């Protein structure tokens, strides 16, 4: 495979574990995904599927005492981020080229720092153009206006802002250095429903204006359909289905888990009497089942599913890891 010119990020076989006292949590188990410049990828799955861990691994902000990347490569602009020394990660990449929007704006901002200073901080440490303090202030003002906050509010402390405004500030922090990749980690779950739509629309608009690529982490398939080019469905630390939005929503193949996710989504066009949430719970990440990780909950589970881990069945750009589509034919084994 050759990296084409507009390939931005290519994650291969990423594996992350957390080591607790006596247990090992297998959080990410061989995730591979790629992203072109300006593209938006939705990373979908339940809580605990390993979405956030994947994101933190890309930025290398995992808690370094407990978390460990045991395998894989993260290629970003041709460099393997897992091998970049920490100081170069900090100088050229983290916050400058890749930025993240965190889930909970209530706790993501430093309570004793003015929000303007928090936005400016990112700029100051990545000040390649040697901007003067006035220029930095200008840039902060511009970014604040971009996210729809009056620039006078930069002297406010976080506790003086509403939840939606705090999230706008968090977004401003991510945008201020004009990164090429934004990772948005469930950017709206902590917000009121009415504000959610506003913030999402704003993110989408800004992303398009700046031509930034984005990984949007969410558990909401509705948001994905609205905003993404491609979708990756994660389950128990693995990507079980990946493809373009059309392929995922109306492709020939569909992973039973994806079907389940759609089943738990109200459909406005078809009149359904009830929703069909997926039965059961996500498996214990310290003790994952053999074979397909979804088999204990799968309504279409077969004998083979309990023993052999399915590989991807490919159709165009659409890939599904399920035995229903002959996936048994072999997936590159990770071990």
């Amino acid at each position, binding site marked *: 495979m050759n990296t084409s010119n507009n390939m931005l990020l290519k994650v291969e076989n990423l594996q992350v574990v957390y080591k*607790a006292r006596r*247990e090992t*949590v297998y959080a990410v188990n061989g995730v591979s995904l790629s992203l072109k410049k300006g593209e938006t990828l939705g990373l979908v799955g339940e809580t605990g599927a390993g979405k956030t861990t994947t994101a933190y691994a890309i930025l290398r902000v995992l808690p370094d005492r407990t978390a460990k990347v045991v395998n894989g490569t993260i290629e970003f602009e041709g460099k393997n981020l897992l091998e970049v020394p920490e100081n170069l990660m900090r100088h050229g990449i983290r916050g400058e080229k890749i930025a993240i929007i965190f889930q909970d704006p209530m706790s993501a901002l430093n309570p004793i720092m003015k929000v303007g200073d928090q936005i400016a901080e990112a700029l100051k440490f990545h000040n390649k153009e040697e901007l003067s303090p006035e220029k930095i202030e200008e840039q902060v003002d511009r970014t604040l206006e971009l996210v729809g906050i009056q620039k006078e509010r930069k002297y406010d402390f976080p506790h003086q802002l509403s939840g939606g405004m705090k999230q706008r500030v968090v977004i401003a922090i991510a945008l201020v250095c004009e990164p090429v990749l934004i990772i948005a980690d469930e950017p709206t779950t902590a917000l009121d429903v009415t504000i959610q739509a506003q913030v999402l629309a704003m993110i989408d608009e800004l992303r398009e204006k700046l031509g930034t690529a984005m990984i949007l982490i969410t558990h909401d398939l509705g948001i994905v359909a609205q905003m993404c080019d491609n979708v990756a469905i994660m389950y128990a630390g693995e990507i079980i289905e990946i493809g373009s939005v059309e392929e995922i929503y109306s492709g020939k193949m569909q992973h039973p888990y994806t079907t389940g996710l759609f089943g738990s989504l109200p459909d406005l066009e078809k009149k359904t009497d009830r929703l069909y949430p997926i039965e059961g719970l996500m498996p214990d*990440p310290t003790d994952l089942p053999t074979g397909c990780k979804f088999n204990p909950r799968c309504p279409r589970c077969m004998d083979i599913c309990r023993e052999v881990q399915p590989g991807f069945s490919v159709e165009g750009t659409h890939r599904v890891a399920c035995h229903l589509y002959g996936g048994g034919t072999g997936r590159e084994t990770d071990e």
Partner: protein
Amino acid sequence: MFMGKKSSRSMSPLQETIYRFSQNKVSLIGLAVVILLLLVIIFGEFVTPFENGVKQNIRIRLQGPSAEHWFGTDAYGRDIFTRVLHGTKYTMMIAFPATFIAEVIGIILGACAAFYSRWFDNILMRVLDVFQAIPGQLLALAVVAALGGSIFNLVIAMLIARIPASVRTARSIMISLVGQEYIDAARSYGSRDYHLIFRHVIPNSLGAMIVSMTINLSAITLQVSSMSYIGLGVSPPTPEWGALLSEAREFIITAPHMIIFPGIAILLTALSFNLVGDGLRDALDPRLRD
């Protein structure tokens, strides 16, 4: 994050606490020392009779540690090991009752403040503000100034110095408990206040209170010895540790062993109470563990 609860699933909270405490080696050492100290009080006479610590023998005065006198001898030729060993009970005689009574008063006043009218709580808090505006050591000094130094008066002094903190701790624990939903639930199906206090609030606050008690024991051990040291507590010839050190002052150059051993006794006692307290706190609430 995904801590396995398999091992603790079938255990009661008490068993779970004991289990977690038993996993903590440092705290177990602390507990062992505390038990050892209690055994010394009971069986000290068999180890070395008190007589050895009273018997004066000028010919062997101010001798350093030897096989015969492990901790050496003092200015009157008395065996310091015996005096330190028997000194244990004076510290405990003051520390235990003072801590226990302070805690009981704390629980009672704390429960009243948490449960009953706001004005009682307000008045209590103002009174506590006043008491806590006086450093504990000075409050104890004032009591001794008025009543004189004796073991009983020291208990009173320590009580008065400690009650404000005990009440405050108990009150904050109980207020946080009363705010919880199961109390409202119990109230909603008609539980009476005293039932709530004795069945829910006190049992649930006990753990935290025991932790504060062990920490208090350590603080009182230190405070009692310093009162005796400055000559306002138990006075020589009673072999209370602080009093031993007070006697030893003038021999700081000639016989430093007189200073070292009683000090280590105080240090070990205070340390082991602290270790037990820390271990209990971690065992009761593993989230607080560092």
